[in-house]
């Protein structure tokens, strides 16, 4: 027992570990909440696009030596707004517009970063995360933006639900559906930006989508899903971080693999919709029906 406790508390003596743990916890929590809306709207592709779109902002901030979180947020929000505005043109499908902008933004990021000296190492940490190298000021940025996001989600939740459930009816009763879309895009952008350092640009989509998708498999109740998604996100992120410490492997990759493991377990054993449990329950129902 004490060995387990030692293993859990051992890394706490390091400052970098405490900062990493806090960021993993907050990222998992916030991405779980925002990701609930992303999964229910079927906008995972937009999340991927925004993840790529923040890249030029981070590159510019890196070159200028300013705050990476703010740089990424500005670029992500600008791209999200451009996508929302250009997607109003009904001749173009939204996924085409997203494809154009996110690839362009990512290309711009690489060009900017290639102009900076010693960009190879920086590029790797942006792409794959560097949770153990997070500074105090980054932790503060993550905490403040995370708190704002949780508040915004609580305030807008019922309106976002109404707009996702039936856009036509939401418009008909006068809900500002366009502005709700913009608000959700901005929230997705900020959630991604604060999670970038945990898992990196390439993998950040997993924090947003995987916990919410696992939660959706576990329940048919929106309120329960919105509690389970952040719990899975935060729990999976912290567990992944501990695993990376225990086996001395890449933290970002292990966080994502842990979340994926949880998703697979839910897919197999979710009470009603799991592959194994669902089949068993369908078999028992068939037997009962045959007997009656």
């Amino acid at each position: 027992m004490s060995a387990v406790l030692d293993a859990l508390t051992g890394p706490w003596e390091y400052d970098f570990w405490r900062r990493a743990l806090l960021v993993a916890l907050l990222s998992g929590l916030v991405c779980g909440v925002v990701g609930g809306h992303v999964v229910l709207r079927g906008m995972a592709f937009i999340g991927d696009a925004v993840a790529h779109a923040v890249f030029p902002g981070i590159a510019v901030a890196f070159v200028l030596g300013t705050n990476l979180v703010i740089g990424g947020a500005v670029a992500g929000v600008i791209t999200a707004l451009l996508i929302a505005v250009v997607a109003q043109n009904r001749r173009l499908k939204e996924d085409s517009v997203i494809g154009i902008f996110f690839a362009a933004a990512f290309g711009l990021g690489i060009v900017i970063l290639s102009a900076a000296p010693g960009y190879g190492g920086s590029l790797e940490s942006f792409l794959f995360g560097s949770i153990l190298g997070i500074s105090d000021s980054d932790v503060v940025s993550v905490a403040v933006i995370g708190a704002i996001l949780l508040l915004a989600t609580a305030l807008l939740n019922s309106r976002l639900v109404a707009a996702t459930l039936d856009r036509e009816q939401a418009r008909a009763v006068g809900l500002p559906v366009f502005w709700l879309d913009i608000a959700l895009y901005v929230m997705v952008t900020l959630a991604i930006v604060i999670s970038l350092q945990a898992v990196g640009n390439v993998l950040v989509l997993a924090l947003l989508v995987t916990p919410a998708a696992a939660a959706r498999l576990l329940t048919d109740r929106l309120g329960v899903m919105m509690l389970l998604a952040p719990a899975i996100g935060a729990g999976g992120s912290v567990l992944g971080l501990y695993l990376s410490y225990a086996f001395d492997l890449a933290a970002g990759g292990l966080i994502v693999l842990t979340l994926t493991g949880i998703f697979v377990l839910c897919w197999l054993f979710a009470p009603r919709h799991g592959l194994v449990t669902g089949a068993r329950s369908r078999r028992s129902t068939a037997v009962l029906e045959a007997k009656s």
Partner: protein
Amino acid sequence: MNEPILHIRDLAVHLGGREVLSSVDFSLRAGELVGLIGPNGAGKTTLLRTALGLLPPHRGVVTVHGRTARQAQGSLGYVPQRHEFAWDFPISVAKAVATGRTHLTGLLGRRGAEDRAAVDEAIARVGLDGLRTRPVGELSGGQRQRVLVARALALRPRVLLLDEPFTGIDAPTQELLSRLLTELRDEGVAVLMTTHDLAAATALCSRLCLLNRTVVADDEPAALADTDIWLRTFGLERAEQLLRSLGVTR
């Protein structure tokens, strides 16, 4: 006769550069149940969407209670076609019905006693009391249609617009819906529904508005006995198909 609640004058609506509605004059009064009839592409849904303030008129005027359609948004009950709703969303019947009043609640979405009473009443009126906690994804087609009607009724509207409410529903739901619409009409609600079910419309509605980009005829069903009007509305040359859909011939 009382003043029209919904008043449409010389309306033209363009979609994608094409004129979908032209010179439409129409009015709807309290206590009327009107069927909007016409072939696919006649502009029925466009007319409803314009009345809801979802589409801007290219020409003409749409007023609801004397206000423009956009100003009146939030006061009209609307039952869209069933495919508009995300049925795979993890939400119960009661909560889905309550979303009809979301625009009336505060930012946190807290519902007051009046909201709860309106939702309870709407659910009871469509006979879904026993299914309040059932996820909407587990409902049959007829039950789903009732959810949409209850969501519109939760607003306690004086005008109710329904888009194809009788399409793809079972006989019990058809009967319930017919009875409910008649009750609403008797309570003074102005009801306008689009439908392809000519037999149901003729039996149920106090007035039929035949539409094909413009109003071809607008009168009580009994006054619309001239076959030519129907043939013109549906762009048909012979009456057999039309009579078959009314169940008059084989």
